[in-house]
């Protein structure tokens, strides 16, 4: 899908969609050139620079945070297209709030996770079947006999089994698991993202892990676990 065709389905008219495909590609290629590694400005500093018109700051913020937002949304929603919409909308809200950003109010990453989490939950509520698992986004089959292929197949099966189990969790439990075990956020930050207490987050995580372990236990043998 080209940048020109990228139009998030949130009832908002996309900005500059038709004229950005070529320019966007050039922007991304410049973004991948490594900046001065000795001077890594903070997220708040980059946001202030962007608000003053520095597009390089926007590239750095995008490189830092868009992959994590996308990863969270992808796992929450189980669909690439919806995850892309959430990611784009989340970053758009960051660009809009940049002039008013207060560095002492919250970390940019925490704020982004919170926005993305809320968008994901809203999207899940709009669906008819909230327990729907990943369908056409399943990994392609590995069709070679190379050494290690069996190991990769086994890893793929375990990942697929976890996806199914995660999809069966309540939204907030799934979010807590993703933030803790995939995004490596500490519990206090997860509490800020979910607007909950640390104790509530710990309870969410414990219940979610118990649920996942129970769902996956019957499949451990077929998935190659040799538990004693």
């Amino acid at each position, binding site marked *: 899908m080209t940048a020109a065709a990228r139009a998030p389905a949130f009832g908002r008219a996309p900005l500059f969609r038709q004229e950005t495909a070529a320019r966007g590609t050039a922007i991304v290629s410049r973004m991948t050139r490594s900046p001065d590694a000795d001077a890594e400005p903070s997220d708040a500093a980059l946001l202030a620079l962007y608000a003053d018109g520095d597009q390089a700051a926007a590239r750095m913020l995008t490189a830092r945070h868009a992959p994590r937002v996308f990863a969270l949304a992808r796992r929450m929603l189980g669909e690439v297209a919806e995850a892309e919409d959430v990611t784009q909308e989340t970053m758009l809200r960051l*660009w809009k709030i940049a002039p008013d950003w207060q560095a002492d109010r919250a970390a940019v990453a925490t704020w982004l996770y919170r926005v993305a989490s809320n968008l994901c939950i809203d999207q899940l509520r709009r669906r008819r079947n909230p327990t729907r698992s990943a369908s056409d986004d399943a990994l392609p089959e590995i069709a070679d006999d190379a050494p290690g292929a069996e190991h990769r197949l086994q890893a793929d099966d375990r990942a697929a089994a976890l996806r199914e189990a995660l999809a069966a969790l309540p939204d907030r439990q799934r979010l807590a698991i993703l933030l803790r075990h995939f995004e490596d956020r500490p519990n206090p930050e997860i509490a800020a993202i979910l607007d909950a207490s640390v104790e509530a987050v710990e309870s969410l995580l*414990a219940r979610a892990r118990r649920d996942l372990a129970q769902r996956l236990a019957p499949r451990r043998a077929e998935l190659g676990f040799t538990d004693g």
Partner: protein
Amino acid sequence: MTPHRDAEDEAALAAFFAAARAEEEGPSVALLSAILADAAGIHADRAVAPAARRFLPAGSGWGARLLAPIGGWRGIAVLGGCAAFGFWLGLAGNLSLDGTTLTTVAASESAVTGVDAFFDLAALEQ
């Protein structure tokens, strides 16, 4: 839920989490391009909007300093509107107040033009 039980669950799930993390795919180039295009677009919108609203020159000249006590050029515009309205009242002759509407007894094209001009000048305040 005891901490020991939770630790057991976490250990049991570790290999599953590791497998799932290994298959993670990053955002597409198209998505990243669109995000950056949004960033450029938002900034461009902000740069244009203040210029579009600005219809008065920067108040640094002698004229602006002279007019500052009465609100600058806007003050002149309002005073002019009031003067025009008063001029029109003088020309219109008898007036009557019907409910909440001020109407002229003898309507004339020049009177209507004066009212339009008044509201046009009042609109400049916004």
